[in-house]
């Protein structure tokens, strides 16, 4: 019974800390000294793992509050400090027109430009001209043959998408090739890397390259103005960060571009 009461006390400290952290209240509302004394008093009586975990969680929350107290003092001494209550009272008294004047004097709108290059417009026109009406396209879709299932490794091997080496080993090999081809340069032109003597092989190389980028072996740099795409190999495999926004970037493996390159070769 006594232990349960002690646990509840720690849970109350945690919830107070969490509330202050989340809502930005005054961190000095938490009695850090008393909370630490409580922890010290309870610690010798804990026996089970869950209680020790609760103790550690409480300590962690208290340390966050101490950090917030530091920031609070820093903010109060900064020029941006003003009592929230005063702001609340002031904004309630100000008329919308006065607030508009304030905004006008403090607002420096960001300027940006969206653009379409001539090349992109021509590509778009070409795409539109080639695109068949949606009804025709829907009619041409093949009937589903039985139950849908995932493509097996054997099928991928048969389709020459991958060979019998493990896919990871294949990617590693491909990564080395990219690093070698970049030859100390920071980046290599996308088409220079994926180009192969046959169009089919070029498509396979483009397919594998997409995995290099997705799995953190390399990254892509797109120069929108020049409409050029480059591959930048990483020297070390990079962990994928969930914080960074991942984007998909479609690249057309255009047969005409390949043919043009083949002729130049």
């Amino acid at each position, binding site marked *: 019974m006594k232990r349960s009461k002690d646990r509840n006390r720690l849970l109350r400290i945690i919830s107070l800390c969490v509330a202050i952290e*989340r809502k*930005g209240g005054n961190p000095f509302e938490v009695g850090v000294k008393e909370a630490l004394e409580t922890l010290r008093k309870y610690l010798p009586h804990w026996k089970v793992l869950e209680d020790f975990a609760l103790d550690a969680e409480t300590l962690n929350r208290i340390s966050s509050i101490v950090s917030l107290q530091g920031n609070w003092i820093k903010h109060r001494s900064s020029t941006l400090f003003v009592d929230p209550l005063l702001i609340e009272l002031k*904004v309630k008294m100000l008329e919308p*027109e006065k607030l508009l004047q304030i905004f*006008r004097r403090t*607002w*420096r709108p960001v300027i*940006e430009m*969206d653009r379409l290059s001539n090349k992109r417009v021509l590509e778009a026109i070409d795409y539109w001209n080639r695109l068949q009406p949606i009804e025709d396209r829907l009619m041409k879709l093949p009937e589903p043959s039985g139950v849908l299932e995932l493509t097996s490794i054997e099928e991928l091997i048969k389709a020459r998408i991958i060979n019998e080496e493990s896919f990871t080993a294949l990617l590693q090999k491909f990564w080395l090739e990219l690093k070698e081809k970049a030859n100390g340069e920071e980046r290599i032109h996308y088409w220079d890397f994926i180009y192969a003597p046959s169009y089919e092989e070029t498509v396979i190389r483009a397919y594998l390259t997409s995995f290099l980028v997705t799995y953190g072996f390399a990254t892509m740099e797109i120069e*929108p103005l020049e409409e050029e795409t480059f591959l930048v190999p990483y020297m070390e495999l990079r962990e994928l960060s969930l914080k960074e926004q991942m984007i998909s970037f479609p690249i057309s493996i255009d047969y005409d571009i390949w043919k043009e390159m083949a002729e130049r070769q």
Partner: protein
Amino acid sequence: MAENTGAYVRKVKRAAKIIFYRRHRQPGVKGWELRRALGKEYVKIVDLLNQHLSSIGLQVRTVYEGSEQPQNPTSEQLDGARFYMAVKEPLTASDLVLSGWRVDDVAALVVAVSYIISKQGKAARKDIEQILREKFPKWRVERNLNRYIRQGYLNEVEDVLYLDWRARAEIDQKTLIKLVIGGDTSKSSDQTTTTP
């Protein structure tokens, strides 16, 4: 000498293109992107670009990560900072009318932003709603807050509102607070530096 000048001119033009044109979800570019495109001396290039822009009332604004605006930024802080193209001087009343903002929308934004600043950069959404609902109907308050979030002025995480990239890039926070509490309004300070 002439070669050097030519190289600088080319780099200034390139810097203008990179900063002006939207490449990402947000406008502007990170310092490390400028370094990669313009070389180590990118800060000097941005400075030169600013001199050109000044004559047409524009400037490159540098917004550092976090709420602190360092006096002497390190190269790491510059790499992580975002560089935007922005208007240099305060807008005139007619400019603001042209921007399409309604007076009540602006008023609600000023209230929300100044309250969040006073609460150290974050405040419970319901507290802000409560203040706004003294003057605006509930539906308008909700619509406005959602709109500011969509536009990048505010960010909401678990019912707590923060200042988002746009408020930090576009609003001179120090001047805003001064004007709201009725301090010296004759000059506006620059919360973000024009050049690092």
